[in-house]
Structures are given as C-alpha cells and as structure tokens.
C-alpha cells in the first residue's frame, strides 16, 4: 500500500474528530489534517512489513492470568462521595442534558 492512498482528507479528519467527541474550527481542522498527513508518512516504515504470518499476544509478565480468584463483593464508594465530584446532580443521580 502506498502512502498517497492513506492521505486523510479534511472531511475524513472532521468525521474522526467528531467520533472522538472533539470539535474543531475549519482552520484547526485544516492545520490538523496537514499535521496528521505528515504523521502518516512517519508510519510509512510499517508499509514494508508483511504482517500476515506474524502473531500477536499479550504481556507475558501478566502472571495474574494464571491466578483466578472468586469474585468477592466489597463496599464501593458511598453514593454521596461519587456525586460530590459534580455540580450537576438530581435525585441521587448525575444530571445530563436530554438526549431526545
């Protein structure tokens, strides 16, 4: 695959930004598109790769994967403490703007 095929358009970057829940002005979007396309060329090294036959696995240091234990219910943070970190709460719940 050649890099040109990977060049992201301003429109595509705008859509990705929207999925990342980030709002950018037209100017920021254009600047970021240029930066991102420069960045993609940095990843061109990996194009030389034939990754088809290579496997991946997880950290081998994770000895916890060999140590299963029973689920034990322990006290959670009190509701007041959790709600104490937001100014928007109502009837013991987080308050958010309407979805519909």
């Amino acid at each position, binding site marked *: *695959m050649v890099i040109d095929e*990977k060049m*992201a358009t301003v429109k595509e*970057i705008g859509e*990705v*930004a*929207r*999925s*990342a*829940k*980030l*709002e*950018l002005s037209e100017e920021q979007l254009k600047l*970021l598109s240029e*930066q*991102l396309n*420069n*960045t993609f060329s*940095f*990843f061109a*090294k*990996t194009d030389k*790769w034939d*990754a088809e036959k*290579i*496997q*991946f*696995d*997880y*950290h*081998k*240091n*994770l*000895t*916890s994967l*060999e*140590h299963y*234990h029973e689920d034990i219910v322990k006290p959670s*943070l009190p509701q007041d*403490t*959790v709600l*104490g*970190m*937001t*100014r*928007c709460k109502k009837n013991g719940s*987080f308050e*958010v*703007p*309407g*979805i519909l």
Partner: protein
Amino acid sequence: MQLNELKAVDYLNMVKSREISVEEVVRDIFQQIDRIEHTLKAYLFINLEEALSEAKKMDRRIKDNDIPPLAGLPVAIKDNICIKGMETTCASRILKGFIPPYDATVTSRIKDAGAIIIGKTNLDEFSMGSTTKNSAFQVTLNPWDINRVPGGSSGGSAVTVASHETLIALGTDTGGSVRVPASFCGIVGIKPTYGRISRYGVISSSSSLDQVGILSKGVKDTAMLMNIISGYDPLDSTSSHISVPDFLLSCTGEGIKDLKFAVPKEFFKQELNIEVKERVADSLNKILKLGGEIEEISLPNLEYALSAYSIIAMAEASSNLAKFDGIQYGLRMEGSGDLEDMYLKTRSEGFGSEVKRRLILGTYFLSSGHYEDYYLKAKKIRNLIRKDFENIFQKYDLIIGPTTPIPPFEIEERIDNQLTMLLADTYTIPVNLAGLPALSINCGFTSKERLPVGLQIIGGPFQEEKMLRVAYNLEQELKEINTVEPNLLF
C-alpha cells in the same frame, strides 16, 4: 549541607538515630521551594500545611519509638497519581478541580510506610510528551540550564529531586517518561517491569505501556523505595504475583564480574550526539574495568519501534480518555442543550492541542478500515520486538546504552514533526513495548554546556536486582561525577 540535600537512605538513618528531626528536613525543603520554585515551576500543588503537620506528628511517633519504614520521608508525586483529597489534574484543564475520593495503591503504600507528601508535580498533559512543555498550566525548567527542557513527561518530579525540592519522587513511564527526565536532570530513574508495581489509581494514558517509576538522588534510594511500592495488588489485574526481593541487597558492593552485557549497535547510529556517545563509552570502559563482559549485538526490529509505539499509545489513549466527558467530575461546559453538544464543548475546551492530535489519531487507528493497517500491525511488530529482546536475554544478563540520543535541548527549539518529537524517546520506547525494566543513571556531562548524560541499563523481565547491582557499582565508580550539583542561583 542543607538537610533537603540529603539522599533518602541517609535521611532515614539520621532520623531513626535521632540526629535530625523530620520537621527540620521538611522546613528546609519548603525553604528551598520558596527560593527556587517560582523559576523552575516543577510543582502544580504544594502541600505545605499538611506536610508540616504530618512532620510534627511523625517526630512525636519517633520519640515514642514508633518508627515506620519511611519515617516521614518527603516524597513528591506526579500529578497523574491519585491522592485522596488532593487535586489531581494530569496537567489538564479537563481535570481542573478533580479531587480523588481514594488513594492510588502506590500512594497508600508510601503513606502507610510513613512518607510525607510534599506536593504534586507537573507533567506533559496526560503524560503526552517528552518535555513537560505540554502542561496546560506551566512550563517546567531544567535546573542545569533554565533555557532547556527537563525532559518528560515526569519532568516536574525529576526537577524536584535534582533541585532538592524533595528527597525522592514518583513518576510514571509510558515510553521513557521517567528515564528521559532522569537523564536530562542528572539523577536516577527506574521504570520497573510491567506488572511489578500496581497502576491502580494512576490515571491511565496507555494501559499496556504505563508503569509507575521512581526518581531519586541515588541507586540505594531507588532500591529502598522499590521495596515499599512493589508487589501484587488485587485492585490491579495487571499487577504481578511474582515475589518481591529485598532490592537493597543489590546495593551491597557485590561486583559485576559474573555479568554479560549486550550493547545494541542500533543505539549508536547517526542520530547519537557525539558527546553522549563519548560519556557512554567511558561507562562501558568502567564496566570492563569492573570485570563485566561486553559484546555488540543487534535488535533487528528496533527501527519499527517508534511507529508501533505511536500507534499503540495513541489508540489506547483515545480509548482511555473517552471517559472525560464532563458528567461525573472535572470540567463541564454546557452546550446548546443536548448531550452530544455538551461532550463536544467540554472535551474541546478541556484538552490541549497535543492531546487532541493524539486522540484523533488514536481514534483513526481504531476505526473500521484502518484497524488492520495500523493497530493490529503495530501489535505484531511489538511482539517481534519483544522476541528480539528475549533472544538477547538468553545469552546476556543486561543490555546497556545511552538513555537518550541527545542531551537536554532548548525550550524554544521547534518540534515540527512526529519523528523529532519522539527522538528523545528513541532508546526508551522499545523497553515499554517489551514490558521490560530499565534504569537511567547519570554517567557524566557534556564538555561545553555541562549538561547531564544518562546511561540506560535494561534488564529481562523482573530482573531489577541485576540492574540495581550494576547501577550501584557504576555509581561508586562515578562518585566524582555524582557530587556535581546544578547551580541553583537563578
């Protein structure tokens, strides 16, 4: 010598033998902070009143012969590690005002052992950077030359140690974030094996790469604090069950004649600064003098490490930072009335430009159609890099080389592309990809500007003892170098 200049192990000996009081030391530290912090800007929060009150309490405990292991040891903590009741921001506007309702496991372990928290230190926002310039609140300066960066992302922690604004500090290391600032500030920095230290309560940047580390004034200090914070934690499913040795036993003067060292030729390529190369060569000669055996080796897949790291780190960050949406804590910006608009306004206002860039890239790498081309491929490259290291550690005890290819660079130096931005991390990133432990110690200075140069010692999984043994032996050989201090008369 002022008491704030003490090494942590010397402090503990003197406090336990009642030669000095905890309060005296803590007061000297706050005097130093008062004198230089306005220039260096290493702390985001200074815990003055509580630390002094804790010091007085600790002195009373010591008087009553109730002496905990850390006996009031002053510790600075990177501001991405939670401390109950103390603001934790990750140097980001999006977390301004966030007061954690619980301690990170490393925090509770050092508190239980009697440490006193001096304050929270500056970092690149969400640990994204190698300079500590990417903080939303302030730029931290290098005490060896205030026109230069201290390295990052744990630059605040490194500066507090190097300038005696604390005795020891905690940081985190995702791609070199402890070792690079340790190298740039002339101190000791360790990134232990992935899983050695709990990450519970550490605000994640890239979960498969992050690890808590220690920044200290000496190898023994590092070993001492490793003893306190290492070990399995049921609250972190990635923490290891492997038993924790007494790391201080590695610092008893046992030689290194039985050890074989590998020097990767890839660490000595064109981009390596000539003076860094010379100082590292001096250290290799000292290892030979101490009886160590050195051979040149190759890590053939290293050239792909930066690309693989960037993809994995950004992809994981985009997922981890999705939770900062303004609902439960931190910044909340009201939009035009609907939920989607609130998310957009909050995150766009709360995150800095470098974080946004990485989140967008990370989202792109994980999106349908690009996942196989980038993320999956990066994970495969990571596996090959790990296998390269495994092969080396079948024949050699440790890998040794420079920590960074360059000495600390100027704050105003333009960083205009991804490659330059990651250049400082070139030799540290592969270690995180492979989940290995590594340590940086100061091995000398550049001749003209007198800037510190770091030597990196890399071990196999859970081989921190060997690393500490070599570092301790080298530290003894480099005693003259390690008595040189930054000129703090700003």
